[in-house]
């Protein structure tokens, strides 16, 4: 029912010990209450009966629950130890009757008292049943809370890890230090251009650090961030890099996850154009096809054969980049978005990375 990481044996034992202690406290409280209500009886036997009945109820209900859960779900593990409410109602009812009968007969046997049968004293029976239902519900809620908490913790850890990976991939040291080295030279020979380059770097860094805080931004902002990054690369690569953007005005406000295209542009540079002696062109474009938004990053670099080679995957650049894009599309759009990486189909060669995602928001006005 709830997906949750299994408990460790130590946790399991601690959980059981807690339940045991809680049962004993419950039994003592019930004994004290009954003793309070009926002051003819001595406290000792009341305590004895209460403890015996409570513990046998626990035994029967616990065994019944585990048995039924295993019966319904022979594979174990995944479903945990919870057989579902309908089964549980029967188990609590039967377990209470059996627990009362066995518990009271045991005390009868060892002390020589005779306790009335369950059906003769309705009040004791009702108290037993109420206590069993209460305890079961209490343990159930506690377990559920524990599972939700661990699931939330796991999701949080995963999100943090993803954020860190994204940051690491975008603040790649090779890119950062080469950019700074270029900046250092520019400051000496062309301070104005150096300032412009620094502004681009600042915008790029700010966008990268902020990307994890918002879930979407307009396509125009996405293109502006790519322009910052590519402007830095243009300074570095000089005439080896040419850049073209195509963003139709009506698509500027389409919302997309921030920096979705960034890893694809980085891959186009790193695995497509940087290894190519004469360099080449990179084109980033957006188009509408019906309700679909098609985002394309195309380069005229060395092509996919190299990208798929073991050499290119050494630093996990390609794999991480494309896996990251896939994961983000999946998280934002489920199966309604898709991602393809293919050889560009014309004479110039190179690679085409294509994202297709639903964008009905900017459709023809509804009114």
């Amino acid at each position, binding site marked *: 029912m709830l997906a949750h990481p299994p408990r460790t044996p130590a946790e399991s034992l601690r959980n059981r010990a807690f339940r045991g202690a809680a049962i004993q406290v419950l039994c003592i409280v019930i004994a004290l209450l009954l003793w309070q209500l009926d002051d003819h009886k001595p406290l000792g036997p009341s305590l004895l009966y209460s403890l015996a009945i409570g513990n046998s109820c626990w035994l029967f209900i616990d065994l019944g629950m585990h048995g039924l859960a295993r019966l319904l779900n022979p594979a174990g593990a995944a479903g945990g130890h919870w057989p579902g409410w309908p089964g549980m109602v029967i188990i609590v009812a039967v377990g209470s009757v059996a627990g009362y009968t066995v518990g009271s007969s045991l005390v009868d046997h060892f002390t020589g008292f005779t306790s009335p049968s369950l059906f003769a004293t309705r009040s004791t029976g009702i108290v037993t049943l109420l206590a069993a239902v209460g305890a079961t519900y209490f343990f159930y809620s506690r377990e559920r809370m524990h599972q939700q908490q661990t699931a939330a913790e796991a999701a949080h850890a995963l999100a943090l890890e993803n954020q860190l990976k994204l940051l690491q991939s975008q603040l790649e040291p090779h890119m950062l*230090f080469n950019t700074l*080295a270029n900046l*250092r030279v520019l400051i000496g020979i062309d301070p104005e251009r150096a300032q412009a380059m620094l502004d681009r770097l600042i915008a790029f860094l700010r966008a990268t650090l902020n990307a994890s805080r918002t879930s979407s931004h307009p396509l125009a902002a996405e293109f502006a961030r790519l322009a910052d990054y590519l402007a830095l690369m243009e300074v570095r690569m*000089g005439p080896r890099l040419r850049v073209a953007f195509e963003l139709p005005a009506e698509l500027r406000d389409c919302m997309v996850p921030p920096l979705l295209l960034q890893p694809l542009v980085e891959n186009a540079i790193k695995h497509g154009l940087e290894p190519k002696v004469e360099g080449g062109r990179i084109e980033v474009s957006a188009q509408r096809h019906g309700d679909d938004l098609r985002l394309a990053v195309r380069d005229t670099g060395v092509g996919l054969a*190299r990208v798929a080679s*073991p050499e290119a995957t050494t630093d996990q650049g390609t794999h991480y980049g494309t896996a990251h894009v896939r994961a983000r599309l999946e998280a934002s759009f489920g199966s309604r978005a898709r991602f393809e990486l293919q050889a560009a189909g014309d004479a110039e060669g190179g690679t085409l990375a294509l994202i297709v995602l639903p964008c009905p928001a900017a459709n023809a006005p509804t009114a």
Partner: protein
Amino acid sequence: MNPTALIAEDEPLLAQGLQADLKRLWPELQITGLAGDGHGAVEQALALKPAICFFDIRMPGLSGLEAAQALAEDWPEGSAFPLLVFVTAYDQYALQAFDAQAVDYLVKPVEPARLGACIERLKKRLAAATASAAPQGMDRTLEQLRSLLGGALQGTPAAPRLEVIQASAGNLVHMVPVDEVLYFEAADKYVRVVTAEREHLIRLSLRELLPQLDAQKFWQVHRSLVVRANAISTALRDDSGKVFLTLRGRPERLTASRLYAHLFKGM
């Protein structure tokens, strides 16, 4: 005579910056060549024979390390091998492999003080070389290149072993068991796959193929040549340090470069 240097750097501003810093800190040094890619760096170095080479590690064409390897293999006998200085933004394996003795390295952005220390080291090495005219400089350089290239190779994770080479010729695909291959030779963007009977061309670079081969069975003996060890019949070393190999089942002689000559020693 003033010392000469070659700068190989694919980012134009960085090449310009290094050149300016060198001019300021070492006015006597003449920058005789600038190259923007690995192949250009090798060609220019062979043509200009500079005393010092500044090689960027990440360049298109050949990496700085590959360019140094090509240079060591093709460097003519009798002239002094250049002092190599590698320049890198962030390549950890390269830094770890250096023990910063004969060859130096610089990290980008290059600080003037660090460049000054590098210049002092280079001046000392140049003075020592002219005083003794000792040829052991080459041996030391070879040794270092070997360890650098070894470090670079260890950085690549072991790819799944290739059992069969699929070589297509028109519509026909030849399935060539790897164990029947005598040697692989790089030829432009292809690799020649040579067996006892015939040869095939595959569209793959030697660099891409290498991690998929068993390094115990297939030995790299030159930057463009990988030979199956048990197909080698004899190895003959000449005075320049090159080794000529004869094969079982093929008439041609292959040449192992001096970078790999250490593989062929009597037991």
